Every structure is written in structure tokens, then in C-alpha cells.
């Protein structure tokens, strides 16, 4: 790097640029938090949905699945599984309930979690709520 560009100039770019970027990022984030209610469908977060998210986390579903494209890539995307399953929470419940404890021979398998009816309803409601978030039209199609 040229001699005319001194170390203190470099330091000033770092400090100025870094602080400016952080401040701008915090302001943008603040704005986003303000407009999120129009998109994240939060008025539909019922106690069932809240329980569902807890069940989701307590069983580490994200360790195999993606949800809105984030997580693991071993098993189907679940952000839109409610629509994929014909807008049916019962279909989701039926699927989760019917996993064989020993897995499906040779096929990628999902554990049997032995969830209670309440927890199953919670998970299904949580996935239904998730499918109603405004995600800028993602995923591209029903297969997720």
C-alpha cells in the first residue's frame, strides 16, 4: 500500500466506518422491528402456537429440518408444510404421530417423539402460523 496512505488514515476508516455501520444497522433494525407486525402475523400467536414453538425447540426439530430455509438440510422444509399437507393440521399431527420408533428401513427416518395430544396440536398450530408469515413469496413452490 502506498506511503501516502498512512496508518492513522487506515485506523480512522476502521473506526469511522465500523461505528457508522453499526449505528446504521441498529437504526435499520429498529425500523424493521416497528414494521414487523404487518408481516409476521403475530396477532395469530395463540397459546397453542407458543406451546408449539416450545415443543419444536425441546425436540430439536431444526436439527433435521429447515424452517423458512434455516436449519438442517436432511429432511423437508417445514415452513410451508401446512400448505403442502392440504391446509390440514390433522394431516401434520397424523404424520408425526405415525413415525415408527425403529425408523423406516433404509430410509431417512424421523424419531417417534411420543408427544401428547396437546403438544401435537401445538406443533401443528405453530407450523400453520409459520406458513402465514409474509416471506416475500419464499419458497418458490410447494415442495419447499
Amino acid at each position: 500500500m502506498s506511503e501516502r496512505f498512512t496508518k492513522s488514515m487506515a485506523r480512522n476508516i476502521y473506526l469511522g466506518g465500523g461505528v457508522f455501520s453499526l449505528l446504521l444497522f441498529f437504526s435499520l433494525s429498529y425500523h424493521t422491528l416497528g414494521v414487523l407486525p404487518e408481516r409476521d402475523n403475530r396477532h395469530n400467536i395463540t397459546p397453542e402456537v407458543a406451546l408449539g414453538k416450545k415443543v419444536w425447540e425441546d425436540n430439536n426439530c431444526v436439527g433435521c429440518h429447515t424452517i423458512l430455509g434455516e436449519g438442517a438440510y436432511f429432511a423437508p422444509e417445514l415452513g410451508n408444510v401446512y400448505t403442502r399437507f392440504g391446509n390440514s393440521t390433522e394431516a401434520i399431527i397424523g404424520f408425526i404421530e405415525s413415525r415408527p420408533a425403529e425408523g423406516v428401513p433404509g430410509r431417512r427416518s424421523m424419531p417417534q417423539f411420543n408427544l401428547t395430544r396437546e403438544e401435537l396440536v401445538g406443533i401443528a398450530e405453530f407450523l400453520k402460523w409459520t406458513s402465514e408469515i409474509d416471506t416475500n413469496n419464499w419458497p418458490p413452490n410447494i415442495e419447499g
Partner: protein
Amino acid sequence: MMKYESQAVAKPYFIAAIALFVGQVLFGLILATQYLIGDFLFPEIPFNVARMVHTNLLIIWLLFGFMGASYFLVPEESERELYSPKLAIILFWTFLIASVLTVLGYLLVPYSGLAAMTGNDIWPTMGREFLEQPTITKIGIVIVVLGFIFNIGMTVLSGRKTVISIVLLTGLVGLAVFFLFAFYNPVNLVLDKFFWWWVIHLWVEGVWELILGAILAFVLIKVTGVDREVIEKWLYVIIAMALISGVIGTGHHYFFIGTPEYWLWLGSIFSALEPIPFFMMTLFAFNMVSRRRRDHPNKAAVLWALGTAVLAFVGAGVWGFMHTLAPVNYYTHGSQITAAHGHLAFFGAYALIVMTIISYAMPIIRGQVAGSETTQRWEKWAFWLMASSMVTITLALTGAGVLQVWLQRMAEEPMSFMATQDSIAFFYWLRLAAGIVFTMGLFVYVASFFVGQKEPPRSITTE
């Protein structure tokens, strides 16, 4: 050979890092097998459990590596002994025991049982990618990291202050601060995801780049003898670009999770600049090596350093850029392309910088300027085996990803996820094969610490 006796506390940290790295990779092999033989080890070790072990061991060994690096380089930069070597040793054992217990918890108890046992109902933070640790483990991590930063901070602030030590300290403080967002887990999934990225993205594409830059700069000063002024100027420009591009670049994760549309623009534009600091790191490393004023006998360390610079740029810069523009990411989001990039970026930038400082520091801690001829030959073999197989893994996953996107997301008649996975199995076989070679490379690396110990160390050839 060490300038300060307390630098030796880095040694257990480096050993633990390498041991956990071995564990990480063995679980990677399990995962890769489960991709092909779906019920392999099922239901004893389901995929999600093996994956948690794989990714959490990665984060933990990198943290051990960063801590070891700091304990080694800060006394030398500060020109004084470490504030408290004893604290460093206490924290080492605390962190190691907590890590091992957590991993055993993953393996021996069903995850929901672990959640119940550790009070996840009281303060739920578990069950999110990379942040699967029980809340008490997270609290433990905070305590260890704060103790560590206190130790390093006291040393830096009461000694000679160099750009390297200040930048390193800033990066470490940032690491601790952003980790605090791991404790915020709102019921609203969109908010949860929004702040989850403040840990993950602002780590790897923010504050960790400061740590990476500082360690790289330190090693380059040592092995090239280039003037500190020059190196420090480079370091400032690199981290300036990292923050200017990477902070708002967080927006490349705010495309499709419920956040407003303006992030499509902000995220694309700023993250498109993110390769710049990585490219500058490559220029920096090669420039300094070609302008070297001494031929340091540790040739292996130079190789690791150059390898870091190149593969960080390829993995983070090139593979990151590939899917960072919103119209592309619309199709590739959460596909094997993401996994391809995640692997080469983590390996190229962070795994390699830790191995770089280990390569430089370990011989010195063991009382030599550099490893013997044989040691270095094994290290170089390990480097090439691991680097080339990781590139192969990346290419295999990229092939898988392109086909996955095509078949499942772009075709007229899209295939289901599971059917798509079956039809791209070839690439997963390739990944498994390359993973086995990677593991062999890692064993060669471990062996390099045991071979050639009786030979005389390589000495300084020219001054």
C-alpha cells in the same frame, strides 16, 4: 524459546482444540453416512443429535483455539507475562468439563429430556441451530469467556499496546457481546430468527474477522519479519472493510424470514462487498511473504497462513458471493449450496487460522524455533490432504445443491424433497469419500506432533 513463560498456558488449549476437532470430524462421517443410509445408527444416534455434536464441537474447538492463540500472542505483544496464568488454567478445565458434559448430554439423554433436566422451561434458549446448548451451559460459556477476556484485557491494558492486541481484544469483546443474544428467544419465530443472526452472522462475518485478522497479522510479522507499521496498516484496512460490508451485510439473511423487502436490496448490495476483506487478506499474506526480510525455519506455518488466506477467500468470498444476491438466494436458500459454502468458509477461515497459530506456536512452546524436517513434512501432507478433500466436499455439495435447486425448485414439475435427495445420492457418496480422506489428513496432522521429535529442529537459514 518462549519470550514469556506464561505463554505456555496456550498448550492445553491447543491440545483440547485438536482433540475436539477429531471428534467433530468423526461425527461428520456419521452424518455423511446417514445421508446415504437413512437409518444408520437410528434410533440410537438420530441425525439431529450427530449434527449438534458436529457443529457444537466445531464452535467449541474454535473457541479453544482462539483462546490459546490469545494466551500465546498477547504476552508477546504486550511485552509482559499474562495477568493470571492460574485463572487461564482454571478456566481451561471449567470449559473443557462443561463442553464434554454437554456433548455427553446430547448423546446419552433424549434432547427433550436434556431440556427438561436443565430447566429449559424456566428460560428457554435451546433447540435453535448452533445454539442447542442447555441454558446453563450457555451461562457457563459466558462466565468462561468473561474470565478469559478479563485476563487478556488486564494483560493488554497494562502492557505495550499494539494494533494487533487491541484489534484482537475488540474482536473478543464483540464475540462475548453478540453471544448474549443467544439468551433472547422470543415466542415470535421471526424475531427469534432476526436476533439469532446477531450471534451467527455478526460472529463469522463481523467480530471473528477481527480475531482472524489479528492472528494472521501476528504470524505474518513473526515469519516474514516485515515492518510492523506495514502489517498494521493492512490489518486496519481489512477489518474496516469487514465491518463496513459485513454489518449491514447481515441483511443477506433477512430476505425470506418475514422481514421487510428493503433488506432484499440492502442485504444484496452490502454482502456483495463482503468478499473484499477476504480478498485483501489474500493479497496481504502473499505480499508480506514475498517481501519477507527473513527466512523463518517454520515453513509449515507459512503454508498454513497462506492456505488460510486463500481458502478463506474461496470459501467465504467466492462461495458466499455465489448465493448472496437475493434473486439467486431465492432458489438456493437452505439448500446443499448453503452447506457447501458453510464448510469451506468455516474450514478456510477459522479452522485454518487456528492451525496456523498452532503450527507457529507449538514448536516454540516445546522449546524449538520450528518443528524438525520430518514434523514439517507431515504437517504439509496434512495440510494438502485436508485442504484438497475439503475442496472436494465443497464441490460435491455444490453439485448436489445445483441439482437439488433445479429438480425441486425450478423444474416445471418440481420433485418432492425426498425424491430429489434420492436422485442426487451420487454427490453424497463423493462427499463421504472425501470426508474419509479428510479424516486421514487430520490423523496425519495429529501424528505430526509425535514424529521427528528426536531430530534437530530446523534452524534459521538466512537472516
